[in-house]
């Protein structure tokens, strides 16, 4: 009975099952990851050498724009929602998400939204070409016609995200098994509930920003037009009020994943559970008052620069608490280094590098030099690729036995890790240097002096892109013919999903709430 599920295409179209919806989110995000990755390959091919080789500058701009949009909204965010769908009900002992039908609606909006966004590549005038941050007036006065489809697409993604976030937050606050008090919840659940709160608070602001763009473009409003009493800089303020919490939306669930995996393979309890919860909440709250550090060079009053600089640097404190926590958890642990743990450790180290470059960028006077250079590109790719994406990858390896009932091939998993580790650094580390030397971002051509670093980065990027196909192969091989997994393949793993459920988890779990001690 518990394992009975509908079959055929209807299973996926009409489903109300959190595991089915989680799988669809994860597969969708991986497809988007490949699409966005292919665009990154175009960018790196063009940047392999100075001069213009493959694409014209306008198409290059479309590639940087679409790469960013697809990776942020199509790959990273849905992958986190997929993990949330699969894990949160099992981890808190709930029979499903709180609002299962709305859950399916949240998912199915996405393929349509991205079909529309990607179709803009084939429209007259090309796809949006103003960068994923779509600053006015590039996105209003000077933008291609397809921008309107982009705007409506962003509205759809926003609706999907808000409904997904409401579902998560209600599930966590209302569906916990008796005895699962808030401070007993796994950290992945904690980080996701805080993420959901951020989503509910900032996605509507993004909707407001694109709505103002739309009316500025078509209905004569002057929000971002100084001659009408508006201000293009106002766009940046509204955008980054959304945009800064957005970067934490992408990373916080990965923090949660690391906080689950590291204790499991260090065979120790997390060093400081409550400090981790409070640190996550502090990061989230601070994220609302730091947005203007993305715009130090727009000519803000000095008092504003100082405020945003200091507030930004404050974030290093709770982030430091987290990194310290992970390291202290490993300290004197009986560690083993299976693939999930390797990705989790790399996450801690490489995310910290991205965090440090973030502190450098937080200093307003220094940022005047770094702004819009490859240093910024290096910074945010370090927190996104070996941060968010390594986090998701670690989670997939860790929970794959729970999802499929099969074990992945450990040797291939480790190979995937080491190749990714090598190439991710080869791709993004040289960008620090070219950026510090002054190479601007989003430009298809560059000075000869940057040629070596760019060649290294391009080689790294091709390797990194190819190695993710290995990941796809490993997952498919596991599903098709992996060795049967034990119910608890990781002896240090804790939590309801490992202690009380078999591998694979049956289609319906916890119809009756489990007993939580």
């Amino acid at each position: 009975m518990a394992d009975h599920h509908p079959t055929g295409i209807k299973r996926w179209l009409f489903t109300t099952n959190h595991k089915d919806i989680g799988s669809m989110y994860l597969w969708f995000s991986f497809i988007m990851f490949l699409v966005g990755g292919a665009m990154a390959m175009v960018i790196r091919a063009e940047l392999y050498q100075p001069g213009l080789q493959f694409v014209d500058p306008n198409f290059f701009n479309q590639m940087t724009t679409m790469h960013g949009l697809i990776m942020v909204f199509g790959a990273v965010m849905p992958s986190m929602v997929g993990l949330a769908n699969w894990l949160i009900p099992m981890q808190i002992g709930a029979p499903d998400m709180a609002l299962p039908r709305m859950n399916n609606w949240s998912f199915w909006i996405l393929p349509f939204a991205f079909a529309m966004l990607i179709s803009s590549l084939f429209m007259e005038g090309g796809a949006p070409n103003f960068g994923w941050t779509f600053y006015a007036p590039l996105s209003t006065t000077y933008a291609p016609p397809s921008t309107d489809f982009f705007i409506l697409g962003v509205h759809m993604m926003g609706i999907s995200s808000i409904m997904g976030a409401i579902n998560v937050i209600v599930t966590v606050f209302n569906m916990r098994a008796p005895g699962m008090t808030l401070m007993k919840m796994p950290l992945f659940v904690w980080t996701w509930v805080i993420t959901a709160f951020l989503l509910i608070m900032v996605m509507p602001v993004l909707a407001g920003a694109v709505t103002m763009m739309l009316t500025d473009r078509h209905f004569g409003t002057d929000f971002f037009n100084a001659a009408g009493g508006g201000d293009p800089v106002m766009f940046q303020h509204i955008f980054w009020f959304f945009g800064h919490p957005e970067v934490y939306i992408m990373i916080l669930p990965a923090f949660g994943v690391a906080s689950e995996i590291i204790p499991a393979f260090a065979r120790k309890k997390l060093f400081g559970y409550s400090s981790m919860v409070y640190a996550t909440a502090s990061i989230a709250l601070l994220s609302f008052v730091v947005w203007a550090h993305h715009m130090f060079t727009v000519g803000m009053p000095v008092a504003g620069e100082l405020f945003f600089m200091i507030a930004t640097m404050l974030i290093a404190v709770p982030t430091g608490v987290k990194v310290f926590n992970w390291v202290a958890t490993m300290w004197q642990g009986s560690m083993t280094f299976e693939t999930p743990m390797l990705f989790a450790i790399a996450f801690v180290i490489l995310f910290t590098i991205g965090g440090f470059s973030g502190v450098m960028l937080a200093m307003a006077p220094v940022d005047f030099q770094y702004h819009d250079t490859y240093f910024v590109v290096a910074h945010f790719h370090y927190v996104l690729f070996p941060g968010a994406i390594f986090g998701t990858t670690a989670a997939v390896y860790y929970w794959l036995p729970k999802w499929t009932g099969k074990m992945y091939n450990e040797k291939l998993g480790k190979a995937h890790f080491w190749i990714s580790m090598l190439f991710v650094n080869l791709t993004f580390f040289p960008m620090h240097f070219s950026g510090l030397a002054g190479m601007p971002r989003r430009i298809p051509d560059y000075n000869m002096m940057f040629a070596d670093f760019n060649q290294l980065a391009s080689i790294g990027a091709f390797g990194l892109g190819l190695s993710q196909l290995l990941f796809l192969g490993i997952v498919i091989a596991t599903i098709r013919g992996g060795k049967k997994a034990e119910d608890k393949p990781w002896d240090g793993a804790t939590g309801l999903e490992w202690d009380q459920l078999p591998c694979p988890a049956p289609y319906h779990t916890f119809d009756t709430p489990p007993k939580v001690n």
Partner: protein
Amino acid sequence: MSTETEEKYEKYYVPEQSKWPIVGAVGLFLIAFGGANFIQQTTGKYGNDGSMGWITFAAGLTIIFYMMWGWWRDTINESMEGLYSSQMDRSFRQGMLWFISSEVMFFAAFFGALFYARALVMPWLGGEGNNVMTHALLWPDFIPQWPMTETPGGETTQGMGPWGLPAINTAILLTSSWTLTIAHHALRDGNRNALLNYTSITALLGIIFLGLQVWEYIHAYQEMGLTLGSGIYGSTFFMLTGFHGFHVTIGTIYLIVLSIRCASGHFTAENHFAYEAGAWYWHFVDVVWLFLFIFVYII
């Protein structure tokens, strides 16, 4: 131990498969895709001609209404069959509260734009701070004042005063919140007649409010020269009051549906989530108006 859990435990209703989400996704896509085409075809900006835009848009709207009808019919039936536990009721309630929170943030974006434009951009355009040259070189004739009756670019308009129609509308909305609260108390006391009467009165007040707002807009466009294109003052005025009016429209339709459901005896003193959600939504729309009245009209 386990018997204790079972005794206390009410089953959480996990619905069977449903077609409504995918229907809704298709509907939303047609609204978005058709809407973008419709807008381009209306303003004629990019030589995107034809009439497929509004047809697609209308088809999308129809599908969404069909979805709402079917989806809510299913939930109402499930609720009337007694499938929903008190835990389920809490899920709905919390979901509605978070949805209203997200709505608050949507309005916050436009209020933020209003405050930023008024408190920072306007003085800067007038030469304050380090913007002396902006004023001197670009728009030397610009006088920073609010309402911005003349934009830096020379667009002129008049400001909308608070007393008169907006004040009457404020009174109407405040009264409607009061009548809705009376209805809500009647529901809890099991007084069906008072419930039906006061809910209908509230919906009627919503309709009157909307009628007066349409009248105000006509007055603004035809007699005051205040339009969406009247600089940042017109932009913020119409976008804030316009989105509020859109929410009042949704709220009024909601209240009409609630009136019908009250007449059909759907709500009991204990079980009436849909009613309370509508009441919360209406109060939220009311509070937004109070902020609008203060910051858009009075100050």
